[in-house]
């Protein structure tokens, strides 16, 4: 039963990941990648890491849907209705990827893996929380600030309207001049 879960999810993850490069349609490629992530999340749950697996499923669904929106906005031929190939240097890339796969697989097989020291924690979710919020607290705080600053910076760079456009040169215009009427504070 337990190995059946592995033999369903692991090939699904690999095959749907491969599908990303086979589909002409951007929508299909995005959701093939999503299925690959969902199968990987399922494998994490199967390994006993329920929190990590569930969070992978949760975050990847949202991320892939957002990615689908941008893929379709930016790519030509998003629905794959007109056959076209976006692959470059087919032979070279194939050789590189096969060589990289072989190298990694050989590395897995020949590495002298250490034997397990200690037992798995009784509650993996709790242990993860302690690790992140204990010894790695400084890392997480720094990461949080860096991500937040990146988001604010990206929004500031992307928006073409600032507060002077909304509230006027002396910031005294009420209600603000917004392209769409309604909303909070109006």
């Amino acid at each position, binding site marked *: 039963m337990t190995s059946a879960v592995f033999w369903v999810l692991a090939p699904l993850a690999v095959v749907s990941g491969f599908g990303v490069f086979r589909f002409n349609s951007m929508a299909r490629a995005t*959701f093939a990648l999503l299925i690959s992530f969902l199968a990987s999340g399922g494998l994490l749950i199967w390994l006993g890491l329920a929190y990590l697996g569930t969070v992978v499923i949760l975050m990847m669904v949202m991320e892939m849907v957002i990615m689908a929106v941008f893929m379709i906005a930016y790519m030509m031929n998003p629905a794959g209705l007109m056959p076209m190939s976006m692959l470059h240097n087919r032979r070279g890339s194939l050789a590189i990827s096969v060589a990289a796969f072989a190298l990694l697989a050989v590395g897995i097989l020949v590495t002298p893996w250490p034997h397990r020291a200690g037992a798995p924690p009784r509650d993996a979710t709790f242990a993860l929380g302690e690790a992140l919020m204990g010894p790695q607290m400084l890392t997480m705080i720094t990461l949080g600030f860096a991500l937040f600053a990146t988001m604010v910076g990206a929004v500031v760079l992307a928006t073409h309207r600032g507060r002077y456009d909304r509230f006027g040169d002396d910031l005294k215009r009420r209600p603000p001049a917004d392209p769409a009427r309604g909303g*909070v504070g109006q």
Partner: protein
Amino acid sequence: MVTSAPLWSVLVVPVLLAAFTAVAVAADALLAARADGRRLSMGVVAPLAEVPRLLAAQRRTTLAPDPLLWRLGLATVPVAGVLSAVVIPFGQVTASRMSVGVVWFNAMEVLTWAGLWMAGWGPNSVLSLVGGYRFVAQGLAYELPLMFALISAAAGAQSLDVAGIASAQGRLWFVVWMPAAFAIYLASVYAFSFLGPFGYPAGRDLAGGMLAELSGPDRLVLQAGRWLLLTAGAGMAVPLFLGGGAGPLLPAWAWSAVKTVAVVFLLVWGRRRLPVLRADRYAELAWVVLIPLAIAQALAVALVVLTTGGTP
């Protein structure tokens, strides 16, 4: 003490969820009949009589659709409803006492993002595509306040296990000291089932939006899916905020059923009372008002738990 039922009980979940959903749909038909001044007895069975008609009706086809994503997206919606209900305890039993049940519920409810976008994309029709994009825009607005509402309940019980959250409300239901989280949660239930004030992706101004190109079994699957999601959301509100199966005299399963039906009635009644919200307006409200409110609620819960070591 809530116990985990054997594995076969997972098969009972869709049956039970479908039964509660039938109650929800019947209540909706009752309210519709009353609003129109029709005879009430016939109005209740009308939606259920729709089922065989839709099953027998012909499927609509469009020019150059993407049938794979279309069907996959439609099927995702009811599947997400059933999977999210797997972790909801019913009285003293639960089909799966998953240690991270709250996160699982959230993840399964988010599957509708992918499902509805694919269902909107599939038919190669502008109206349903706009409907799909509307749902994603709405999702970006409702999801974060919902997450903080779930975090409030989990932090109050110091557990991600749904049954643990239900049993942590022995003295005081979470709805009493987390009213903002409860209100945000109920609004989000409308949002992920795109009903009532969040019916914008299937709005009349879009000739049905998500539903525009659906007929026959396809339409049945999506309509059933959104009502299953509404019912699963109502069922989850009971262990999260309303004390689970706790109550005097009646057994725990009966209290679970009574509370679930009460939340279902509240949602079905509110669906006819509230106007449909435009996604951009709700996004502004969500980001400017609801997220700070939800964070303040979670902070208040965290402070209470830190000072008293548990519920107040």
